Structures are given as structure tokens and as C-alpha cells.
């Protein structure tokens, strides 16, 4: 099957931040402490794509643009991909497999523990994202599992907020967006938000 044009464009767009790294790294675009900057860069793109993935369902339901659902899986997988780059930066580039430090970090530092939890959720969702896995798990169980994406959203917001040294403005903005998306989801569930989709279907 040939991939459709819209999905191809989306794929390329979502790959751009990662491709940019190939340019930024050798040209010094990440500054004189590129590994630390890389942690921020990959973390930022992971949370952005996660937010985009979380936005699909409420946006599709409110607007009635069912087409949007077509993109949800790919965007979610990209969120996982940037999360993976982020964790790779931490484990390989920053600590070079220094197990003692990494284990101590995960056990002792709440923001790292939470980051790890979010990563495991995204990993589980990525592994079970195929049609085959949906069939194997059964729709009900699959859905229950994939609701964990909300825990991932909240976890990421907390992880980001706890990670900064000073000035939590930026993580609070991301947290507010995530909170809004969760609220929209709740309101939709209890039929408290208008669904234009009822009209269009």
C-alpha cells in the first residue's frame, strides 16, 4: 500500500526536529555543552508531540473532523521517538551507561522516577500500537491500556516542572495545555461540550 500524501507530509514534518539535530550537532548549534542542551531539546519535542497526540481526540470530537484520527497513531509514535532520543541522551551521552548513577537517580530523584514512568508508558503504548496488537488485546483492553496516555501527559508536566532550577513559567504553560486537554476530554465524556460531530455524522 502506498502511503498517502497527507501522512507522508506529517511524517516528514515530525521528523524535522530530529533531522535538525544532524545539522545542529556538527555546527555547534547546541552550544558548548551540547549534551545538556540535547536533553532539553529532545525533552521539549517529546512533550510537544505528546500534547499534539493528546489533542487529536478532543479536537476531532469537537470539530467533527474525524479525519484527524488517522494521524493519532503516527503522532503518538513520534512522541515516543523523541522520548527515546531523550532517554538515549541521558543514558548514553550524559552518563555513558554509568549504571550506579542512573539507578540512584531513578530511585532517589522524584523527577527522574516520574520521567522513567512516563517513558515506560510510552514504550508500552508504542509496542501495542499496531492493528495486530489491537486485535490481540481486544478493543476493550487495548483502550484501557491506551488511556495511560493521560497519565503520561500529567507525568511529563510534573517531570518538566520539577526539573527546572528557577522560573517555572515554561513548564506551567505546558502543564496548563495538558490540563485543558484532559478537561476537554472529561467534558466530552459527560456530554458537557458541544460536539459538532453529531451534526456531521
Amino acid at each position: 500500500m502506498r502511503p498517502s500524501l497527507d501522512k507522508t507530509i506529517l511524517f516528514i514534518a515530525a521528523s524535522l526536529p530530529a533531522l535538525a539535530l544532524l545539522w545542529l550537532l556538527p555546527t555547534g548549534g547546541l552550544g558548548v555543552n551540547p549534551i545538556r542542551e540535547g536533553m532539553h531539546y529532545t525533552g521539549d519535542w517529546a512533550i510537544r508531540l505528546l500534547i499534539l497526540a493528546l489533542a487529536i481526540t478532543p479536537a476531532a470530537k469537537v470539530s467533527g473532523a474525524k479525519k484527524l484520527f488517522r494521524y493519532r497513531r503516527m503522532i503518538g509514535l513520534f512522541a515516543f521517538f523523541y522520548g527515546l532520543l531523550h532517554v538515549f541522551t541521558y543514558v548514553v551521552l550524559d552518563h555513558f551507561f554509568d549504571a550506579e548513577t542512573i539507578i540512584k537517580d531513578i530511585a532517589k530523584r522524584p523527577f527522574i522516577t516520574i520521567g522513567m514512568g512516563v517513558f515506560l508508558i510510552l514504550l508500552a503504548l508504542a509496542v501495542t500500537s499496531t492493528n495486530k496488537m489491537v486485535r490481540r488485546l481486544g478493543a476493550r483492553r487495548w483502550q484501557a491500556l491506551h488511556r495511560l496516555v493521560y497519565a503520561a501527559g500529567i507525568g511529563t508536566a510534573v517531570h518538566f516542572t520539577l526539573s527546572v532550577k528557577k522560573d517555572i513559567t515554561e513548564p506551567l504553560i505546558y502543564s496548563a495545555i495538558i490540563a485543558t486537554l484532559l478537561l476537554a476530554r472529561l467534558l466530552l465524556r459527560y456530554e458537557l461540550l458541544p460536539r459538532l460531530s453529531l451534526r456531521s455524522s
Partner: protein
Amino acid sequence: MLIRIRRAGDVRESEITPEGLYLSRRHFLAGGAAAALGLSMNPARAETALRALGPLRKSGFSATEERTPYEAVTSYNNFYEFGLDKEDPAANAHTLKPRPWSLRVEGEVMRPQTLEVDDLIAKTPLEERIYRLRCVEAWSMVVPWVGFPLSSLLKRVEPTGKAKYVAFETLHDPKQMPGQNKEALEWPYREGLRLDEAMHPLAILAVGLYGRVLPNQNGAPIRLVVPWKYGFKSIKSIVRIRLTERQPRTAWNVAAPDEYGFYANVNPDVDHPRWSQAKERRIGDFFRRDTLMFNGYGDEVAQLYSGMNLRRYF
């Protein structure tokens, strides 16, 4: 605009910069490339725009490790008066006017004084001190400072018997330091040392680096350097030094008392709540290296803390 007048005693550029642009193969890919790019794209920021200092005495306290490239030392700074990102000070610190500059020394002293910094520079024998700088964020550099022992200044003002601490203050002027319009920290930035720490020969007031006057982003025109403590203790752009009986307030301790102590001695065994302090990344390196107790200055300074619980007084 600084006008450069070469005096007989001036150190020639070629003497200060034997390796040309201070670049070396060992430097990690991006760091080296950034330095190269920065230099080629931004000639105004190159160190040649700044007045050379000299003559400079060499010091037995100098480290022999490879120095961090000038471009890295002057482009990666924590100086919240000019923004919270490391690149902000280099981009924004041009609003600071480091000359003329007066420094007030007062408090529990017999002879309080107001000093003109350029006058002080002209009259004080200057030394080059190549020190390791360990940031509390677990990165480090090696910086060739130019300065003089803090003790020489303190002796001049004759501390009274009541003086137990030395309190330092950065300039407070949001016009020159726009970051002070935001309440990121309690302004002005304050730091402090115990008097015996301040009198230690390793503690210096720096007025330059790499043989030239300090760039604004590094704390022009005069700053503290205490190499056995985390970088935030080494307060920049100082306007006031006050000897006190009580332990003074210090900016980061006020902001987050459980994260940043008054002493802030480099200590690989006492973690920051959010990260380990056991290792650090030297700017330009790929692998982390072990952090040394008192940043490797234990032989000189450990006796200042004998009998003290360094976990409690972190």
C-alpha cells in the same frame, strides 16, 4: 569603546595565547566547532576588543590542566541579571557599563573605603591564576583568571575584632541589568564568606581572564573567585563588600535553602536533590570525570573545615 594603550609591561597577545585560538583537537566536536563559529561570525566579541592587563605574575596555585577555550568561557555563563539561559549573558550584557566603577568596602572595618576599580587595577600587582571552576550544575571549566588575593584588600581596610564574615553585593540597576526586572532571585545578588575563608590565599578578586579585562558576561569589572566552592559563590560585578558579625544572606540560599547552602563547598559526596555531584562534565569533554573534594583544592583549604559536618553545612 575601549582604547588600547600598550604599556611597556604589557603582555603581548602572542604570549597569552600560545595556541592561537585556544582550540585543540581534544575538544569535543561541537564545543570546538561552536568556538570556531563564534569567533568567525562574531569578531566584536573576540577578546582582542578588550584591554590587555599586565604585567602578570605567575602563581604557584595555578592548575596545569588544559584551559577551556576563551569562546566557551565567555559564551556559557550563569548570570541571571542578564537572563536565565546560559547564552543570555553573552548576548545581553552589553548594557552593563563597567567603567568607571566604584567598589565600596565597609562594615566592621577601621578604614572603610570607596575604590575606583581601574585605579585599583593600576596600583595592584596582578597575578594569573588558572583555576578549575565547578558549577553546581555539574559542569566545569578551567579559567585563567587575572586578579589579586582578596586578603590584600581586606587587610587594607583593617577588619575590627567583630568582623566574622564578608558580605558581597552585585550592582543593583535594572537599566544596566535588565534581568533584575524579573524576580528570578532576590536582587541585588548577594554572596558571603566566613572571614577565614575570605582571607585564604586561594580566594581572589578577579579583574580579567585570558590576560585581558573581564568581559561583561563574566562579571566585569571585578568579581570574586573562590575555586573550592560551587560557581554561584563567585559573585560577579561587585559594588559592595561589607564585613559583618553575622552570617550574611546569600542569593541562592534564600531562593532554595534545601538546595544551596551558605558554604557550598564542592563535595562529590553530597548530592544536589535533583542530581548527583559525584561527577562533572568538563566543557569540551564527552565523558564525565570524577568531581574532587573541594574541587581538588583540599590540601589548601580542608583545614578551614576541620571538625565540621560538611553534610549539614553543605
